[in-house]
């Protein structure tokens, strides 16, 4: 069997990784021919779709994959049927190579019952569970969390001592800006799921080029995780917050873009009044924070220790403020309850200005004949 060796030294760029794929590889004639046949079949199938679409034999949406054939083909060579794959609506090629035939794909597009999904799905909805193919999903970006769920299953049912099956969620550079991709990436990293976030960056999200839809220089989606600079600040120290925020504001105000800020602080109470706040942390932890890191004590100490105020003076101030708050509370308690009109005021604004509620012709009340009529 003849084979050749190929240089790959300029085909990878790494980010936050110490290891990398090899800089060269060998492929046999047989392998190369197989890739060629697969890719050329995909190409011809997509061109046929184009023709038939223009002849009005294909309805609705139709997104073609020509130009991107190497991605599906290369991935498929590495994947087994037990690995999962989910992609967007640009899915004809994956449907084909994950257990389908050209005839099945085209029959689906022609709305035939013998089609891949019995004519119910059309261009955007192909599936083949037996071959680990989960679509064929029509909502931009929504397939990514779902794909991470496929990876979740792989970990849930992993066999001890064996590598896990993987799940690949493919999406375009346009979808890459969806918030839910970050949401699922966070969980995948947190739980070490065998999830592959595969951005097929074809330079355009519909008609918007990467330069116009991503803040990452050059649209480098593999660096998406940390393109924005960040600063961590002691949020219990008012001076650190002040100086830190001065720096942040200066950076952001001068056209340098956004910044992530993390304020290290602490919540003394439970999350809400129904949470005693003691089941997931210890009372010692709370007490320790109060005694060592309390933000108010910090200021008080700063004043006294630097001879700026006497301890007695500070006590007087505290006493006065306590009194003021108590008085305000009592006064507030004496106020009137809202009049009944407030039930149906401000559902709609009349003209967008403050305090101008639109007079509605009819507001349904629990009892129909007690409804409010203009």
């Amino acid at each position, binding site marked *: 069997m003849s084979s050749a060796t190929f240089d790959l030294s300029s085909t990878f760029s790494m980010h936050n990784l110490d290891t990398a794929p090899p800089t060269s590889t060998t492929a046999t004639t047989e392998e190369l021919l197989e890739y060629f046949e697969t890719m050329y079949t995909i190409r011809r199938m997509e061109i046929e779709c184009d023709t038939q679409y223009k002849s009005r034999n294909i309805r609705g949406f139709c997104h073609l994959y020509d130009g991107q054939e190497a991605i599906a083909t290369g991935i498929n060579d590495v994947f087994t049927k037990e690995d999962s794959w989910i992609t967007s609506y640009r899915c004809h090629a994956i449907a084909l190579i994950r257990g389908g035939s050209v005839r099945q794909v085209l029959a689906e597009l022609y709305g035939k019952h013998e089609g891949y999904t019995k004519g119910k799905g059309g261009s955007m909805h192909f599936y083949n569970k037996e071959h680990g193919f989960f679509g064929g999903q029509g909502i931009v970006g*929504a397939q990514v*969390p779902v794909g*991470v*769920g496929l990876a*979740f299953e*792989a970990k849930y049912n992993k066999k001890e001592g064996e590598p896990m099956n993987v799940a690949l969620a493919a999406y375009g550079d346009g979808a890459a800006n969806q918030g839910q991709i970050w949401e699922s990436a*966070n969980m995948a990293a947190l739980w070490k799921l065998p999830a592959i976030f595969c951005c097929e960056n074809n330079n355009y999200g519909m008609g918007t080029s990467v330069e116009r839809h991503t803040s990452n220089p050059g649209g480098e989606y593999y660096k998406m995780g940390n393109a924005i600079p960040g600063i961590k600040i002691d949020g219990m120290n008012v001076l650190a917050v002040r100086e830190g925020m001065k720096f942040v504001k200066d950076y952001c105000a001068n056209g340098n873009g956004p910044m992530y800020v993390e304020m290290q602080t602490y919540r003394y109470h439970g999350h809400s009044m129904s*949470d005693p706040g003691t089941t997931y942390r210890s009372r010692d932890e709370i007490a320790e924070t109060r005694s060592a890191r309390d933000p108010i004590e910090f200021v008080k100490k700063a004043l006294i220790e630097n001879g700026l105020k006497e301890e007695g003076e500070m006590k007087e101030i505290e006493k006065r403020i306590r009194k003021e708050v108590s008085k305000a509370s009592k006064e507030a308690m004496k106020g009137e309850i809202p009049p009944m009109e407030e039930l149906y005021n401000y559902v709609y604004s009349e003209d967008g200005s403050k305090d101008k509620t639109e007079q509605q012709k009819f507001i*349904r009340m629990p009892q129909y004949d007690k409804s409010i009529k203009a």
Partner: protein
Amino acid sequence: MLSSARFSVKNALRLNSRFMSSTTEVPVREALNMAIDQAMEEDDAVYVMGEEVAQYQGAYKVTKGLYQKYGERRVIDTPITEMGFTGLAVGSAYKNLKPIVEFMTFNFSMQAIDQIVNSAAKQYYMSAGDIACPIVFRGANGIAAGVAAQHSQCFAAWYSSVPGLKVVAPYSSEDAKGLLAAAIKDPNPVVVLEQELLYGTPFPMTEEQMGKDFVIPIGQAKIEREGSDVTIVTFSRGVGISLEAAEELATKGISAEVINLRTIRPLDRETILSSVQKTGRVVSVEDGWPQCGVGAEIAAMCMEDDATFDSLDAPVQRLCMADVPMPYAQNLEEAAVPTVGDVVESVSKIMVRQAAA
């Protein structure tokens, strides 16, 4: 409102306990917990995912003790990221796991509604039967006490309009246990709309109902109280106030039949329509908004069915939440939702109508 909800439940209990022997009082949250626990014991594919479901033991303690019993593999705290974890759970269901996704409240499910409607509900259809999605979305739904507009609303009508979803709304502990068990066993996405105000309310349960084989079939309503003069169709909190209203109406010589829908989708049309044909009058009671609400569907159903339409002696009455976002102040909040008095008045009015005719 909280106190009136409790009051009505007490009355309902009195009614129920007359007919029951050897029962145990079980709060709704414990009945839900029991259903999840039994399902997890039986089937390793069942797991629980959501915010604060594990170490915190559930924001409303529905998942209490499950993390201790089943561990972090099967009881999973997520980041606050509804769209992400809902999509993730849906994906795992494509591969035959049976996730129970807890929304701390259904208000937050709006963040994830695309995944529920587009990724879960439609998958089986879109794949021409290749990929089912056995998943449960559950949590507190409907009105709550003093939490204002963003945290006090009913999503029954929203979810029940979606083909591919099933929607159940338990009232009692029996409902909660049986419907949740059925939801977990169901091979489709099921939305389980619980009611926060009822979580702590105890209802009597029999040994059989507490057992591991007990399920309430999805799609079957329950006639909570038989009557001959008027049909009250309701679900969730509305069942409590309707039963109390029926008791009061009985003292006025009016016999009200109270139907607890239990399932909002698919609606048990047969039970509803045959009851209305018997009584000739119908009042719907819900905590959702009026427009395109569950009551609107009941009314439309009675119009669309010839035999039912012909049997009507009075116009259909709908009781629902006022057509406004929920206000905070207690007096406004109370005015915005149906009360026992509203039900009694509505029924009394349509009874008078017959006397005049």
